[in-house]
């Protein structure tokens, strides 16, 4: 706290700064840690887990992927069996600092291989035979009362509203904050409280837009930009905006960013390396920027993707839709290291890595361990993982 206050005193936007620690303190008192931000990183298209966290020592890995296996000498070693794709080298620093948790074998029963259906399942935390329409975050925090000075419950910087979709949440999608402000300015204020429920809903949403716009103006004024080398490309841009919001002490429980193009059915190596570079470099820059702003302790980053890919390559030097995959959890409070069993290529299910950890356990970790919600029914009894420090 001290460090933060010190930094603020020197900032040009002292007027806003005075208010924000109060907002953070207020958020902390809400019964759950609304002052903590979860950054959800969607890897859209189905990221290839075996070429992300590579079981390089397993001879079956080379055998299954003669043309697309990552060269052993290029791998960023994590231990004697597993290593990161070379494009993720920038994450090495977080790994060494013990802030990168890698959760392996994340998936679910009766996996669905359709992009649309499977991302629906991940977004809503539903079993594969159940159809839910509200995003999992909305189901967890939707019911809790909103604090006056929260920027929004969720800010979507990339991709669809997915996990934060649904009526219960104040989620704002703003690929470009300036543009959002311009659009919001066109709305007339309305102070009516009509009995007509449809009209009341419209006015409520209108108020939310105006509240968010007001908060956002303050946020942008007190953190004109963040330092750091963010990689070129959409994910780098989104992470820069995310860092800026967090550096400005915006109270926003969820920030969602997304990178697409992981549906690598053909000629995978080049494009996949490029995507992972954006991911690795982007997260490393984000970590640096948020640390510099003194807020890294309030941030947890979590990746997700609709599915992993098949263990064997296909006939076009690519991979087809699979099931389980590893995911990253990054933050000062993450328990660095490998969690969950390494993929067993000798024991595949239908050509896929077996899943060992239900993806809802990641969500339960965010809800209960990170935000401090009591056990919720939202995850069908799936318990948190021991991947965060106390």
């Amino acid at each position, binding site marked *: 706290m001290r460090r933060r206050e010190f930094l603020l005193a020197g900032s040009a936007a002292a007027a806003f700064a005075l208010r924000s620690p109060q907002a953070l303190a207020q958020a902390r008192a809400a019964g759950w840690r609304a002052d903590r931000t979860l950054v959800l990183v*969607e890897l*859209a*298209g189905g990221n290839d887990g075996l070429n992300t966290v590579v079981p390089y020592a397993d001879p079956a890995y080379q055998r299954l992927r003669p043309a697309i296996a990552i060269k052993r000498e290029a791998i960023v070693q994590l231990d004697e069996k597993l290593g990161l794709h070379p494009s993720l080298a920038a994450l090495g620093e977080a790994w060494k600092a013990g802030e990168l948790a890698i959760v392996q074998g994340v998936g679910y029963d009766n996996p669905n291989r*359709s*992009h*649309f*259906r499977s991302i*629906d399942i991940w977004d809503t935390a539903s079993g594969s035979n159940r*159809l839910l*329409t509200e995003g999992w975050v909305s189901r967890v925090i939707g019911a809790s009362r909103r604090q006056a000075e929260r920027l929004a419950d969720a800010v979507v910087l*990339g*991709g*669809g*509203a997915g996990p934060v979709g649904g*009526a219960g949440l*104040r*989620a*704002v*999608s703003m*690929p470009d904050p300036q543009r*959002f402000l311009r*659009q*919001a300015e*066109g*709305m*007339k204020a*309305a102070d*009516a409280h*009509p009995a*007509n*429920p*449809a*009209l009341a*809903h*419209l*006015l409520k*949403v*209108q108020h*939310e*837009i105006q509240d*968010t716009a007001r908060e956002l103006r303050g946020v942008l004024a007190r953190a004109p930009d963040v330092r750091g080398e963010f990689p070129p490309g*959409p994910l780098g841009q989104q992470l820069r905006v995310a860092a800026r919001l967090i550096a400005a002490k915006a109270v926003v429980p969820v920030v969602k960013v*997304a*990178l*697409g*193009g992981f*549906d690598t059915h053909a000629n995978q190596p080049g494009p996949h390396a490029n995507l992972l570079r954006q991911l690795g470099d982007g997260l490393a820059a984000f970590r640096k920027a948020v640390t510099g702003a003194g807020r890294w302790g309030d941030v947890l980053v979590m990746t997700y993707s609709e599915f992993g890919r098949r263990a064997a390559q296909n006939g076009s030097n690519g991979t087809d839709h699979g099931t389980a995959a590893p995911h990253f959890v990054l933050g000062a409070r993450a328990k660095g290291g490998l969690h969950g069993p390494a993929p067993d290529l000798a024991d595949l299910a239908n050509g896929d890595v077996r899943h060992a950890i239900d993806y809802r356990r990641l969500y339960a970790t965010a809800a209960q361990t990170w935000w401090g919600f009591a056990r919720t029914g939202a995850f069908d009894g799936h318990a948190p993982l021991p991947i965060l420090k106390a």
Partner: protein
Amino acid sequence: MRPVRFALLAALVALPALAAAQAPSASPTLTADDARHLLVRTGFAALPAEIAKFEGLSRAEAVKRILAGARAEAVTPPPAWTREVRDLRPPGRAASPEERRAWQRQRVEEGLELVGWWYREMIATPSPLTERMTLFWHNHFTSAFRKVRAPVLLYRQNATLRQHALGSFAKLVHAMAADPAMIVYLDSLQNRRGFPNENFARELLELFTLGEGQGYTEADIKEAARAFTGWSLERETASYRFRPFLHDGGEKTFMGRTGRFNGTDVIDIVLQQPRVADYIAEKAWREFVSEKPDPAATGRIAGRFRASGYDIKVLLGELLLAPQFWAPENRGRLVRSPVELIVGTLRQFDLPQPDDRILALLGRALGQEPFNPPNVKGWPGGTAWINANTLLVRQQLLRRLTAGEIPAAGRQTAEGEMEAEAPSMTPEERTRRQRALERRMARRLDGADLDAWYAKLDRRWQTPERVTALLVAVKPVNPPRPDSDPARFVRDLVLDPAFQLK
């Protein structure tokens, strides 16, 4: 003069009271406001000329007229390719990458054309109720381009939905079970003897007829799936085909009955469940009357619907004549869907239809892409149409549509801003598209010349009160100043939250 004026005033005050007193006994005749309500709720907009035709009719006459005008076919000629025999199989191994891309691109182009065609029909149709019901059934028996991938199948499904839109619900269910788009959408192709795929069977019970968890078991779903094995299609001609060698002809026990049932038998058994009529009546109530069905009323309406053998006109007639439909407290309490808002605004102000790409992009930004519902449950609708993002886009659209014509100098085609839709949309594309939509709306979307529109209005609508009553169903949140010029007044009305309601 003074006493006369007073007497007149007294008479004016007494009139509504008299009308109210008479209401329960005599069949009330439609006022202009009633006619507007009926037209907007059963269509997309109410134009003064249409209102004039319904004013003064009794409710029964008015509803009868709307139902009698219902069509079973579109008036707008469909794209030529819908009449061709289509092979659904992608280009074979011999095809070059260019040929494959061309094939993909053609599908995407046809998909866009199909969306544009349906909008043209919704705008041009003499029977808006037919299109509203086609949309209603599209949201009930969902199929989506993103899975079906073949525009010709979605066109044919749309034609089938329209054919039965106000016909027999029983026939509609049977038609949908054998509908090629549905067969692809709900994996009936994978439903084979020994390897049943339950997708269609589950939705048949859960979403199409009974409602989630209402009077069926998981075992019923499994048995129904067996009964539908072999319901397939012929890819070469894109048509339904029953494949006997894939069909499980064995004995099934379904909803307490045992026999060697096929899919048709299963549907017949389901349609004998009384719950079906209730489920459909409740859903139609939410579409036409209010967000909260009145169980006594829907129970009664469902009874008539059931007794009629699932005649959809009977269902709608009952709904539209229910006192709750006309009740003042239910007016202006439903949110206009994106399609209703777009079509309604274009119809109301006689605006040219935007190009197909704008419509497709708008649908995505507003949360309702025709031929692409989000999942098998369809669009949730109601107040869920409105969130921070969709409300901003709605306002942006309406601002553009009321901003007057685009001067010729500003009119240019923004080349390369929109490419054909890729098989799965990436987040970057989504962002890019949102920007492309804004650019296109700014450059290509003509707005109404509101002065000219107002000048052409029938004289009796040319007062602040009447034009307000014409355009919005409830009192505006920010009533425009009565002394503002007409164009400004109308624009403020359209941008008022009240305009989002029906």
